[in-house]
């Protein structure tokens, strides 16, 4: 309660929490976009999503350690992870495309453990950071906005927009959408669905990579970072639905804000609990509102 009063006494704090939450959300949005894409097109829930984020983080960290500005890590991580994503599709993912959900979760879970342990062997379990050196902006005298978070926000919006354009306009984008709607029909119409799916998974990996590079510059990277990012992506996608790019962005930022306020008011230990409770309420509410719609239509 005391924390709540603090918010009323110092309204600028709310601005701080709101900004932090929205900017954090943008970083999550990238990974969530990828997850929505893969889920929508191939019906696979990729549990290794967080590990792809982690690998992207290491790209930024390695650049930083080599004396190169880690911001270059964003496109580089995207490019490298695109290649890795393609490789993963060709070696593992294509085998589970038409299998049931359980198989795909199990396979990607295995993949996530493999990537974690590989990162542990290659990079060590140390907690790493990459310094962007962008400094902090000061708003209204006391609200601080970390420069890299603004960049992250811009990158997330740009990537979202680019993805939307790509899906709408390009040949591959159309093929991806066609495959998402009905893979068999697309195949009959001459779409090389195998190639489409490889593209989709590679794009997903690229989005995670970019997100990871931003994570390393904003927070920390270590090999066991993945799970919270996977869970968060999953939640965002559940709330936003598949194939809804603006929805994913909005849900991601909304969750970020909710989480930050919960952490402030209830204490950090209830941060995650609050968000999960929120998720339950949203799902229940959506179920009821959908049921009402259905009744109305009938």
């Amino acid at each position, binding site marked *: 309660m005391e*924390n709540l009063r*603090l918010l009323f006494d*110092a309204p600028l*704090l709310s601005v*701080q*929490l709101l900004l*932090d939450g929205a900017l*954090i959300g943008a970083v999550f949005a990238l990974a969530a976009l990828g997850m929505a894409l893969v889920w929508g097109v191939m019906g696979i829930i990729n549990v290794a999503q967080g590990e792809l984020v982690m690998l992207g983080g290491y790209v930024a960290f390695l650049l930083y350690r080599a004396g190169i500005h880690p911001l270059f890590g964003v496109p580089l991580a995207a490019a490298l992870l695109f290649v890795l994503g393609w490789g993963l599709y060709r070696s593992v993912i294509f085998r589970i495309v038409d299998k049931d959900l359980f198989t795909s979760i199990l396979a990607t879970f295995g993949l996530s453990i493999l990537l974690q*342990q590989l990162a*542990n062997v290659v990079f*060590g*379990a*140390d*907690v*790493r*950071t990459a*310094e962007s050196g962008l*400094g*902090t902006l*000061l708003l209204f005298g*006391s609200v*601080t906005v*970390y420069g890299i978070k603004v960049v992250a926000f811009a990158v997330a919006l740009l990537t979202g927009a680019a993805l939307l354009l790509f899906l709408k306009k390009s040949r591959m984008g159309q093929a991806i959408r066609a495959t998402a709607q009905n893979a068999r029909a697309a195949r009959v119409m001459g779409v090389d669905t195998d190639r489409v799916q490889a593209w989709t998974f590679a794009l997903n990996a690229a989005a995670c990579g970019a997100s990871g590079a931003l*994570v390393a510059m904003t*927070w*920390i990277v*270590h*090999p*066991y*970072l993945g*799970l*919270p990012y996977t869970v968060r992506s999953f939640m965002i996608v559940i709330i936003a639905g598949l194939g809804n790019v603006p929805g994913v962005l909005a849900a991601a930022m909304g969750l970020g804000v909710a*989480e*930050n*306020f*919960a*952490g*402030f008011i209830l*204490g*950090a*230990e209830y*941060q*995650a609990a609050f968000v999960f409770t929120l998720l339950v309420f949203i799902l229940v509410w959506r179920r009821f509102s959908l049921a009402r719609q259905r009744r109305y239509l009938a």
Partner: protein
Amino acid sequence: MSTDTIRRFAAVAAGAFLLAAAAVAAGEGEDATILLGAAVSLTGKYAVNGKNTKDGYDIAVKRINEMGGVKVAGKTYKMKVQYYDDESTPARGAQLAERLISQDGVKYLLGAYSSGLTKAIAPVTEKYKVPHVEANGAAREFFTGQYRYLFGVLSTSDYYLRDAVTLAAEVAREHGKDPKTVRIAMAYENDPFSLDVREGVVEAAKRYGMKIVIDDKLPPEINDMAATLTKVKAVRPDLLLVSGHEKGATLMVRQAAEMQLDVPMMASTHCDSAKIAETMAQKAEGVLCGSQWDRHLSYKDRWFGTADQYADLFEKEFKYPAPYQAAESSAAVLVFADAFARAGSLDPEKVRDAISKTDLMTMFAPIKFDSTGKNIAKQMVMYQVLNGTYKVVAPTKWAETKLVWPRKPQH
């Protein structure tokens, strides 16, 4: 399966068993090694500290063997450690302890890394009456008299940040203020270690009559401390305390700088193993770190010489500076070596009794156990990050330099 196959299988199995038994017996006779066992975290979230622990054990065993081994009742033995990877999970740790004792025939156990793992393993060593000297489980609950075979060489976790509170009280007095006016904000990871750290701080704060204004618990998969630190920014405490292993230390330093917090005194555990001074010198300027050990302490022993010489040797061997996790682990091996010699026997029960009577000076700390198995001869040290290096500022007996207050971070 026909009876014939079963019979044949049984014969083969029996033969194999006899061969193995013979091999073990021969091994004992010829090499004369004392086998210690340890489950350490080589993978999983404690992989860094797990490696520190293993390196600490290895260097001590190597040094003891170089110096001729351990003399027990006129016979010389070399030491050897059988390791398993506990994957940083307590259940696995307990399983491996069982395996070490009942399958590998290990009669003496070195500890795992972290209180969580130690908590899982201690009941196993208790069940089999196996002496268990640990160096990396600092939870207070181990030393309440419930474990007869468990001994810890390190200070318990409630001492990690206690000295920060004492320092804050001293500073307040120096500036003509009552320590009662000091306000504390703190955040702890929700694990046995950090909650013990919290207990120690709460006790110390109560003693000085200080007020705790923020008391947050961080989730174990903590990736962001923005919400807690926003609160810190709002209430402007005099002292900020964080305990969340390397992740907590790194996030505190990084995000406090990013949010331009101007708390005059900040302290954390694990900042030396998180390398905050090396990687974020400017942001970490003035941060205090609770630590078990430092190479500048004036302890020495007959195996390694001074703490400083130990640190040099360690760095030469493993190519990274010796963290306290390694030094304390080495000390655990030294305790065994000393106890074997004094016990004059390899009987686990006699070795246990010898350990309980330990009164040993090591490069890590003086070691003397009370009846609960806790090392009562040792003190914690407090570092401050100054110009990118760690300087001991407390206790005053070993202080390299005076505490800089208020801290002057460069945002």
